[in-house]
């Protein structure tokens, strides 16, 4: 967990913050402190080495976001030669905020994110607990778990749309055998949403499981011995010892998953096309439609900016809360 802590502390030269785990970083602090031309030359080399990567990243992320911001506050007209920016206006945001479609997309995306990440966390932790206790088979099962994770999203969506297909899909057929009726999985809003969550859970629980497993392996054995001496049973040990120790390690994985789920596009695009109706229309699908079906670039930019603001807000909030936890943990 020290990695995120590290991002906050690495810039400041004060010693003793990183802790013993950060051997590499602490070793270089003597190098950075001596004044003089040698240190300055090293710093210049450093920026020289880092700048190609940083410039490309900035050109494709920071600059476009600024461009979006301008577009979203301007009248935009599409002409033969290209775009023409008109006078400043709030119309794009007004359209977005008075349009119920945007709220519905936002609600679906948030709901999908919360439900799927929560299920992935529970199943991933269970999977990791099983894997931790497995003997020789662990390596094999870990390898198998990587396969759904590495599968192209679009292929996963096509595969499950076949399995969910009413008529000959294996899942539909199984439902009919068990409950006596063919469900219309992708044709009704709630089952379609559940189906989308199920596919996401199938595909990304392995990632959560592997991160949690890595966290489990890091918990020192004497912590458990202490709990055993105190007479804690397995259940208490899990809630009072294992889970608190895992929390900081899992936090980053959850942040990754939340932001990934929030940007979901491939799965609804192929599995449900955002339907039935607009039941599974995510923010990304809505933005895509505004852009390429309505050719409304100002409106598309407004979706882009609101998404960016929400995502950045979540990130900053998360890093703040999370850092507080690390500090508490460090002192305890």
């Amino acid at each position, binding site marked *: 967990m020290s990695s995120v802590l590290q*991002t906050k502390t690495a810039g400041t030269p004060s010693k003793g913050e990183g802790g013993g785990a950060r051997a590499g970083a602490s070793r270089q602090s003597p190098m950075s402190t001596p004044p003089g031309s040698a240190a300055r030359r090293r710093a210049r080399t450093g920026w020289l080495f880092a700048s*190609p990567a940083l410039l490309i990243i900035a050109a494709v992320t920071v600059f*476009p976001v600024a461009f979006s911001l301008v577009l979203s506050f301007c009248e935009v007209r599409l002409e033969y030669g290209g775009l023409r920016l008109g006078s400043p206006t709030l119309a794009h945001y007004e359209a977005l905020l008075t349009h119920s479609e945007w709220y519905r997309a936002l609600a679906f995306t948030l709901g999908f994110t919360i439900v799927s990440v929560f299920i992935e966390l529970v199943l991933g932790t269970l999977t990791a607990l*099983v894997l931790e206790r497995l003997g020789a*088979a662990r390596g094999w099962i870990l390898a*198998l778990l990587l396969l759904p994770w590495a599968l192209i999203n679009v292929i996963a969506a096509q595969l499950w749309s076949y399995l969910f297909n009413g008529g000959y899909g294996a899942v539909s057929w199984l439902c009919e055998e068990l409950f006596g009726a063919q469900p219309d999985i992708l044709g009704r809003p709630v089952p379609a949403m559940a189906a989308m969550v199920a596919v996401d859970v199938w595909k990304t629980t392995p990632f959560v499981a592997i*991160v949690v497993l890595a966290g489990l392996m890091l918990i020192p054995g004497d912590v458990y011995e202490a709990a055993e001496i105190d007479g804690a049973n397995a259940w208490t040990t899990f809630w009072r010892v294992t889970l608190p120790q895992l929390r900081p390690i899992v936090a980053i994985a959850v942040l*990754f998953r939340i932001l990934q789920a929030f940007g979901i*596009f491939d799965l609804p695009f192929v599995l449900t096309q955002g339907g039935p109706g607009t039941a599974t229309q995510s923010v990304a699908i809505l933005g895509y439609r505004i852009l390429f079906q309505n050719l409304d670039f100002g409106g598309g930019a407004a979706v882009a900016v609101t998404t960016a603001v929400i995502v950045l807000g979540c990130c900053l909030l998360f890093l703040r809360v999370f850092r507080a936890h690390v500090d508490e943990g460090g002192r305890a």
Partner: protein
Amino acid sequence: MSRHVPRTGVRRYVNVVNLGGLLIAVCATLPLVWMASASLKGPREISATPPSPLPRHPTLSNYETAFARNGIGHYFLNSVVVAGVSTVLILSLAFFAGYALARLPLRGRGAVMTALLMLSVFPPIALLVPLFLMERQAGLLNSYPGLVIPYVALNLPFAVWIMRNYLSGIPGELEEAAVVDGAGPLRTALTVILPLARPGLFTAGVFSFTATWSEFLLALTFNGSDDRRTVSVGIALFTSQYQVPYGVIFAGAMVATVPIALLVLIFRRSVVSGMTTGAVKG
């Protein structure tokens, strides 16, 4: 691990843990096996009820159609070019940036690392409009660079993060020895650090290749024309007039999946260490 008391007496294979492991393995792979099997079924068998797990009359006709009529071979080549070139560029840029951020005294490094972490999970939809307009203006739509440039930029933050974490774990003495020998920073990086950086490069490389191989949103909007489609766009848009041609789709999907599955299985250690790098290592 040492806390589990070793089982005494007859080692029992039927227990909760082993059954759980079996269940996990089946859940992860059964849908994939189903897909492989369906890709070998003829048009009648693929929509038969009840569905059969294995093809009764296996045929390669779906693969023939996928190559001959749906151009999966062509999409495959496009993906190889785009993902391959992107990965090489990402690795060369990320190596130097990671080295600088791990080793050289940079002011504001903390801010840069935090920004990179946030950018590595930034949803591409937030960049779609401006990037599309910029690429249109520059005439980059439906070209290889039109995808390679955004792919490099969007996957660099995570690759830099991995390289930085990996390189800051390498002992500094080797480097200092090279400096004492009079080697400049570039030579030190290339002759001393680069050979040691291999595991980090594997991790960053597998992640970059997998991400660029799978990417869909930008590939769909920037390179939608048939001759520049990558596999994910090609497979998403495989349709025919009357019925979804699942057999052909799955044949194409198998062609797109086998290389990436092999890559991930061969480099599984790198993948696992990359997944946990943000959380555990460094």
